[in-house]
């Protein structure tokens, strides 16, 4: 907790520099949103000659875009479900117990996200080729679930570590066995962490391109579709429209997850 005067006023220069940093971070995203409404479709001319909603119509008429969106949603749902189960199991196992090899196991869980995506992607491809597995829906899901696992794990573990051990003991003392304790005491507590972790995992999976390019084969998730469109000179603003849609679809879960974790921390007695 910061006391009232823990922080000092920054100089004007410092504040400007900080603001500049924030603007730098946000400007490109807003540029995309702006370009989604431009009337010019051949170049990236700035300022845009005019504003229109025309491209939204055209974009939503593209059936391949919808197919890609549908695939991305299904993949994200499946990967998130898997990640929730596996990540939660891991979190409960590792939250409080100390045992030999715990550090190595934790490292193993972090590895898929710690190593660059290209290595994960190539490794999965190599693995698939070795056992002769054809890329498809489930290979995409498998790849996503592997690193989404860590997101859920982090969220649940953080929540479990903030929970006093006495709660579990009190529950058992009052007559509840392990399963009842989980149902009445633990589950309500980690529910918000599960939700937050699940939403972050969903956003991560929906947006994923680097590993997916290796595991998708001929399938097109929305990011893959988008990547293909990047180099198409015609109908350029359509890509902008889809970009805006993607921003919205991923933004909502992220914000929700953030608020969930914040209220969690505040609500602890």
């Amino acid at each position: 907790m910061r006391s009232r005067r823990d922080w000092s006023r920054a100089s004007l220069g410092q504040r400007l520099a900080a603001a500049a940093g924030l603007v730098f971070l946000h400007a490109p995203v807003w540029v995309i949103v702006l370009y989604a409404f431009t009337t010019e479709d051949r170049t990236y001319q700035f300022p845009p000659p005019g504003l229109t909603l025309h491209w939204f119509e055209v974009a939503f008429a593209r059936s391949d875009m919808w197919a890609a969106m549908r695939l991305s949603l299904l993949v994200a749902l499946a990967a998130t479900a898997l990640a929730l189960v596996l990540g939660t199991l891991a979190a409960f196992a590792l939250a409080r117990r100390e045992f030999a090899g715990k550090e190595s196991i934790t490292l193993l869980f972090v590895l898929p996200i710690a190593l660059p995506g290209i290595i994960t992607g190539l490794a999965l491809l190599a693995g698939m080729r070795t056992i002769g597995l054809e890329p498809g829906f489930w290979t995409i899901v498998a790849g996503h679930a592997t690193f989404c696992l860590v997101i859920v794990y982090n969220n649940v573990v953080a929540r479990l570590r903030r929970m006093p051990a006495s709660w579990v003991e009190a529950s058992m003392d009052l007559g509840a066995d392990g399963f009842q304790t989980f149902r009445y005491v633990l589950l309500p507590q980690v529910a918000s962490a599960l939700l937050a972790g699940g939403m972050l995992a969903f956003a991560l999976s929906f947006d994923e391109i680097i590993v997916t390019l290796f595991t998708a084969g001929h399938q097109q998730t929305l990011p893959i579709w988008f990547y293909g469109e990047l180099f198409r000179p015609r109908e350029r603003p359509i890509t902008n429209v889809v970009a805006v849609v993607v921003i919205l679809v991923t933004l909502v879960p992220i914000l929700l997850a953030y608020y969930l974790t914040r209220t969690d921390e505040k609500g602890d007695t």
Partner: protein
Amino acid sequence: MLRPVATFLHGRNAFYVSLLLLPPLLWLGTVYLASLFALLTQSFYAIDEFTARIVPEFTLKTYGQLFTQPANVDIVLRTVFMAIAVTAAAAVVAFPLANYMARHAGPKMKALCYVGVMLPMWTSYLVKVYAWRLILAKQGIASWAMTSLGLGGALDTLLATPVVGGPSLASSYIGMFIVFVYMWLPFMILPLAAALERVPGSLLQASADLGARPGQTFRNVVLPLALPGLAAGSVFTFSLTLGDYIIPSVVGAPGYFIGMMVYQQQGTAGNMPLAAAFSVVPIVLIAVYLALAKRLGAFDAL
């Protein structure tokens, strides 16, 4: 009903933990570790020049190819230099914002800043890359802004610089550099802000009390204590740049980077062993960097 099971598990802690860990470990073991192992194995195979097929025999030929062909060495060096440059630049750019967030922002402002950093961080990667392509394009915002500010001539000179320049920002190393810095900036800001926040205000007051000017306090007190945060952030920027293959292909000069090479070799060139060998390079470099960063205390700052 389930009570006998619960009681059975109650005393047997090790068994219970193993039961919980079995599914995730099994998953990671088969899907991930086995794949990594397959990758490593591939790097020790080689392509038969005549049949263009992978010969599954242990050989160091592919690694030899990697380290002896000048084109390949170029690729590695180019990527490493870019990674180092990006890391340094990101540290400098991130500092003012991180410092403000940690030391000078009131509680509400601080929360706002954190959201302000996290939102772009979680915005779609491709969208961001694409946005920069628009901005850096020949008639895009960047050139419009420069000409409006009367810096059109400066931009042209910049683009005329050998090696790093190019026909437009969007197809030059400078452009690529800017995009890299932008993409990984939040990953540098957050650990840095966390580390700076942990510097007790009393230390700065003590330094001033003993006669140090703000610059000296910064150099002697703040910077050394912020180092773990810097190290942690640099791990991200370094490893992310090292392995990226999309940014160099969307924005930048024709020169190849490790990531692009890997992607191309496993795809159109069908040379999985070479792709695997190339991908081992970042793994080794990152492992070394991690060891270094650990020394600097990066892991305590994460």
